[in-house]
């Protein structure tokens, strides 16, 4: 699904003072009884959240209080209740992101402390995970290096992007500019369905069909190669690229295209010299989001890789596939505990931060594009 970008085109207009004024207006205009009910709802839900975070068995009480006050509010003061409930639901989306950040970071702290390294007399926590390539959870010295997994993720992502970007942008051009309506009605759902095929099914086919074939063709020892994981992951990231890039391409005003066509250019000339340059930032956001998908893809990588957290030799040896940041979590969560489990959380933190940065970057690019095109739509 394409991220919503419409309001990003809006300029930031409201300052905090305006919001305070609005809140005061709301309080002034609202019936005191309704206000009381709404406050009870908010407080009890907050209590439930605190109880839940504190792992308390009594969480149920404030939660029931919330349900009861909402029920009362719904029948007596529906207007206010609906407003407050929808506000709480909105806040919950931010809250979930916040909780993810807090919890995965918190779990990863011990191993970051353990893997401190000293540089020029300064002790940098976690540095040793990135300056030596050794992951050994069993025999001393116990080391949890992220380097092999980062290498794996980079390899897979590069190959996947090389597959997904050109094919995806070309398919988006096809869908948005070239295809006649009946053809589009077939291809577009097809791309959607491609996004729907579960990653474990891709992985299973890769594992049973591609991996043995690749090992045979390239005469490697054992199965599992970054090359083919990358290709499979690229195909899985393809639908994301297609749908976001198509949105970007079709947001180009028709007037720009017809202006070009009226000069007597071919469709393709219009595409390459008007549509694609105008939609360039949106298309690159699409590719970025595809890259984000590729980085986070788990199951296909887990099933198809070898599960040995080591670097390939030489580093460019794409015919061997060891481990990625995602697959090491999926493979090792079962027997891991203590520091090793925390090390898996570090892998999760790296993934989360990278993909979040990509997502925010892509949104910024799209926002800028809409702002630029905004006057003409």
């Amino acid at each position, binding site marked *: 699904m394409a991220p919503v970008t419409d309001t990003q085109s809006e300029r930031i207009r409201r300052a905090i003072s305006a919001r305070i004024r609005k809140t005061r207006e709301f309080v002034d205009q609202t019936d005191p009884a309704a206000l009381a009910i709404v406050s009870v709802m908010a407080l009890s839900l907050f209590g439930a959240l605190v109880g839940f975070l504190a792992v308390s068995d009594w969480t149920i009480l404030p939660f029931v209080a919330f349900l009861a006050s909402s029920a009362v509010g719904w029948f007596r003061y529906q207007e206010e209740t609906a407003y407050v409930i929808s506000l709480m639901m909105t806040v919950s989306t931010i809250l979930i992101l916040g909780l993810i950040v807090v919890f995965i970071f918190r779990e990863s702290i011990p191993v970051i402390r353990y893997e401190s390294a000293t540089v020029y007399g300064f002790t940098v926590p976690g540095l040793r995970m990135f300056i030596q390539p050794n992951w050994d959870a069993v025999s001393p010295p116990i080391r949890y290096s992220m380097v092999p997994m980062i290498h794996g993720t980079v390899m897979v992502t590069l190959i996947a992007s090389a597959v997904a970007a050109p094919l995806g942008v070309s398919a988006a051009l096809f869908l948005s500019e070239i295809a006649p309506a009946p053809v589009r009605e077939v291809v577009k759902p097809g791309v959607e369905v491609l996004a729907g095929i*579960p990653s474990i099914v891709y992985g299973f086919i890769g594992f049973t069909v591609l991996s043995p074939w690749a090992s045979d063709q390239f005469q490697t020892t054992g199965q599992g190669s970054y090359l083919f994981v990358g290709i499979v992951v690229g195909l899985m990231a393809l639908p994301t690229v297609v749908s976001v890039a198509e949105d970007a391409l079709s947001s180009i005003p028709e007037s720009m295209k017809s202006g070009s066509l009226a000069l007597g250019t071919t469709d393709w000339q219009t595409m390459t010299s008007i549509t694609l340059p105008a939609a360039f930032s949106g298309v690159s956001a699409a590719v970025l989001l595809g890259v984000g998908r590729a980085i986070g893809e788990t199951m296909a990588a887990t099933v198809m890789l070898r599960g040995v957290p080591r670097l390939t030799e030489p580093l460019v040896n794409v015919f061997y596939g060891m481990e990625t940041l995602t697959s090491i979590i999926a493979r090792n969560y079962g027997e891991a505990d203590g520091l090793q489990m925390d090390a898996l959380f570090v892998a999760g933190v790296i993934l989360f931060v990278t993909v979040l940065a990509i997502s925010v970057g892509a949104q910024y690019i799209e926002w800028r594009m809409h702002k630029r095109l905004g006057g003409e739509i």
Partner: protein
Amino acid sequence: MAGATQTGGELIEEETTETDAVAAGAVGLSAVLFALAVAALFERISLTGAIAGVRTVTLLGGLLTALGVAVVAFGVGSRFGYVRTDPDPSAGLVAGFGAAVPWVVIGGGVVSETLGLGPTIGVIGAVVAGGTAFAVTVLPREDVGSTLPLGSLLALIGLVFLTGVIGPEWVWELDWAQQASITAGFLVPTATLFSALYGGWASAKAYGGFGARGRHMGAYVLVYLNALSIIAFLFVLVAYVVVQGVPGLLNGAEFGFGTGPQTTILGVSVTLPVSVPFVMNGVALFNDFQGVLPAIVGTIWLVIGAVLLAVPLGVGAAVFLTEYAERGRFTQVVEVATNGLWSTPSIVFGLFGFAFLIPRFGNGKSLLSGMITLGFMLLPLVVITSREAMLSVPDEYRDASAALGVSKWQTIRSVVLPAALPGVVTGVILGVGRIAGETAPILLTMAGGTFVPGSQTVDVLGSFQFTSAPPFVANPALLEATSALPYQLYALISAGVGASSNVGDADAFRWATALILLIIVLSFYAIGIATRYYFRRRLRHT
């Protein structure tokens, strides 16, 4: 053709038609080569064997050479005026880079490996070859530039195959610490594939007579081929799973009255007219046929739980964002957060559930944790699609309702939500299809057991009970680890062959599991897409 006896102008027309036919034939030849290369890549045709009495590699080489010669001949013919075309002064930088890439690979490979001069001189060779190709493409007129480098590339590869320099037994051992080789089985089809693409591109340009129209043709051929390949890929993928999975799925299946198990529908005991043990049994020692019923039921409950959590939350948030909140920093933050959640890797959700939910629900993997984790994953999708649907409701609707003097919430409830319902429903169904197939989050939060006995089929509704100690309500079924189809498939893959001896044919069992999973997920998609079409058509009619 018709104009042979008429004026000179039409004679030229006829000539052009013939050369057009040559170019069209070259495009067709490229298509044939493309198909042959794909078939060889999937080992549908054997490289060591023969097609129509000609050895496969020789045949590919011959066809490539012919295509290359045709392409070059067309370009050169156009340059010297034998063929009427409409070329630009230069083929352009994009075409230059396109032609340079294969020549870089060939130049580097030949100099460093075939001549044995090592990687350093190989780089020089690569740069020289690529640079020459780039220059020959960009500097001369377009008809030469867009045919000569590519045509000679095709002819070269064709001759290498034809003369047997690279035969079916050819192997290039990469001297790497971890042993790997490039074999003819990979190189020949791949080289043919890319050559066919280049050949098709060049000859489509030629068919269009170069210039703007030629580039249009060349690009359209590639773009159409790409779209076609994606659809073909999807079709092959699904067909392959179906073909592999059906035997396992129908293992022991019976049709006809009285064959199926007894079940109670609306209080009436009915004997189903079909019996498909694979979806009606668990795994047990004395079963005639083993099945995955617990995993199917687990998946269904998982989806129900996730939807119950995510849909109210998501739709509520969308209502607030579109209807109540003025666009400003707050909505922007929410949007960035939602989009961020949407792209967060599924395994990170799993880690989060592991750290956050598991300690709070009985310190073990549980169905409830899985439901909530998947609900969190579904949430951003529901918010995004519901917002899109609500934003597309015209403001006139809202104004008309407001003009009647009703309150804002009543407008939302009776005007905006009904109008946005189709979009929301479609989005939710498609989102459910996505999460139903997710493995990574439930791996860490919910799933346990590879072969689950039928007796462990989760029964959520029947397990609610009240307790005297807080939290007063308990549901053991929700707090137990259970299986779900995607996890089941993963467990079957990672368990290997030895562990699965109790299900008879383990391979058929796996493929059947994959098929069931695919059927469930794709039916969500089919329903979602069909709903969208239904509402869209209804909108158009009214």
